């Protein structure tokens, strides 16, 4: 992970930001996609990055923080190398999600939800409805959407993420 004191929007990231401008009639509307760029570049969204994007879009740091904290997918702290989101809302709970959650916590070494494993490899969080209720239990590992995850599949799946 790069240092948090360096500007995010230089080089390619700056080009990506500027490519957003024609897509929206106002600059503030570019905030959500710009926050995604920050997270892709840095892994999380630091206060410095919030201030930087605020300045570029004409928004106060407080406003940007208000938006970042509203949406659960933006990380306000560094997370493990691989970020795992597991659905446990009622339809998946009926399909056995609680066992899948337990298996993930055990095999990643995270132990509890929201924690990062001691080796920094994984963070596991519960997430509300992933919109794949017919494929209980769906999980997201980074950007990989994986359906029908049963406890016995967990060790094999994790091996792909070192």
């Amino acid at each position, binding site marked *: 992970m790069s240092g948090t004191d360096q500007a995010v929007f230089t080089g390619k990231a700056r080009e990506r930001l500027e490519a957003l401008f024609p897509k929206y009639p106002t600059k503030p509307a570019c905030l959500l996609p710009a926050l995604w760029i920050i997270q892709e570049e840095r892994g999380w969204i630091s206060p410095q990055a919030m201030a930087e994007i605020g300045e570029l879009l004409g928004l106060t740091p407080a406003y940007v923080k208000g938006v970042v904290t509203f949406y659960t997918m933006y990380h306000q702290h560094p997370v493990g190398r691989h970020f795992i989101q597991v659905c446990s809302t009622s339809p998946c709970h009926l399909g056995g999600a609680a066992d899948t959650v337990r298996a993930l916590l055990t095999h990643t070494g995270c132990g509890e939800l929201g924690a990062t494993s001691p080796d920094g490899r994984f963070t596991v969080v519960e997430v509300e409805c992933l919109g794949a209720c017919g*494929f209980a239990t769906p999980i997201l590992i980074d950007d990989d959407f994986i359906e029908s995850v049963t406890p016995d599949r967990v060790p094999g799946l994790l091996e792909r993420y070192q």
Partner: protein
Amino acid sequence: MGYPHPSHPKETVVLSQYFGDAGARSFDGWVERGGYEALKKALGQTPDQVIEEVKASGLRGRGGAGFPTGLKWSFMPKNSGKPHYLCCNADESEPGTFKDREIIRWTPHQMIEGCAIACHAIGAERCYIYIRGEFTDVLAILQVAVDEAYAKGALGANVFGSGQRIDMVIHRGAGAYICGEETALMNSIEGKRGNPRIKPPFPAAVGLFGMPTTVNNVETLASVVPIMNRGAAWYRALCLGNPKSTGTKLFSVCGQVMRPGNYELTMGFPMKDLIYDLAGGMRPGRTLKAVIPGGSSVPIMTAEEAETALCDYESIAEKGSMLGSAGFIVIDDSADLVYEIYRLAKFYAHESCAQCTNCREGTAWTAKILERILKGEGKPADLNLLMDLGENMTGKTICVLSDSCAASVMSGIQKFRGDFEKYLAGARSPALVA
């Protein structure tokens, strides 16, 4: 449904015809399957003609509210001199509902084509597709499809040589159920927190960026394509129940059934057949206990209510619930209904935007009281307290998130009171650790 198992003979396969057929994903593949003919036909008609066709089809919004689509389009001003916008709502986040994801991942051009037709009808030159942030695989498929549609002239400054401009921007959400509410969705596109707005003004008057806007669900827009291809009369004739519910609809079935999945049915299809025949019925030795038919935001139906209902807006309303977005959560006799209702309350408490007091406090306290009941620490007055809370969460807030939370809790207590009382009487061991 075509994926992951073949279509059932009792399905009416229209929208889901190419589910499981990866060849339908590309622009050329879609064209080979008759794609983009509907858009060309629509571009040859006036916007009013397209709106009249959709009105005559009887198509109603598939996102949950069931509002007539043609009528919604007709609310857009004519010659306003302002930019108009279409928002395609692909923020599918309703527990139990997983149909839009299938439409986009198998037939992204079906949705793009529907969006373009709608843009023509409402005079919009730009469509924003609001897709939930977690749909990573679907987002990648959609991005490829939009790029291809531009490259092949189905989008851009001169759509198929018609002189009409239609641009499409994919806007990725970032984890907020409430952004599926249309005014919260617009705020989210504008770079704001996803708080719903007070209506009126309605989006057709003052919408995205303050301009006239229509927000439609993915499935609604996809349905416009076969309507333009085959005509309103054909669509309207697809009806097994009340004539106000026409066409086909994707019914997502999940929970404790043998074959969860999406089933495309003619409106008015018997719910009993959907559950026991298409979705394979209960697991061996199990019986049906309850069904939440509309996605999680509607009242729970008893087995008897579900077995005698038809799958349309009116019949389910007669049985005291709502079709909603047709995400059927099927619950058998092995489930702990109190826990499942608690888990839904926890969902709503987590997803409340916290703007309205009745919702912010109501959803949180509902979840806390249910938690205490599940820990074996419930008090005799708790059920009345939950009902009272529910009353104060219904019809009292800017949007219907708190109503949705109250719906399952209140109907659960009314119809399955014994389940709650077992915990209160200490007749059932606690489901949660105190």
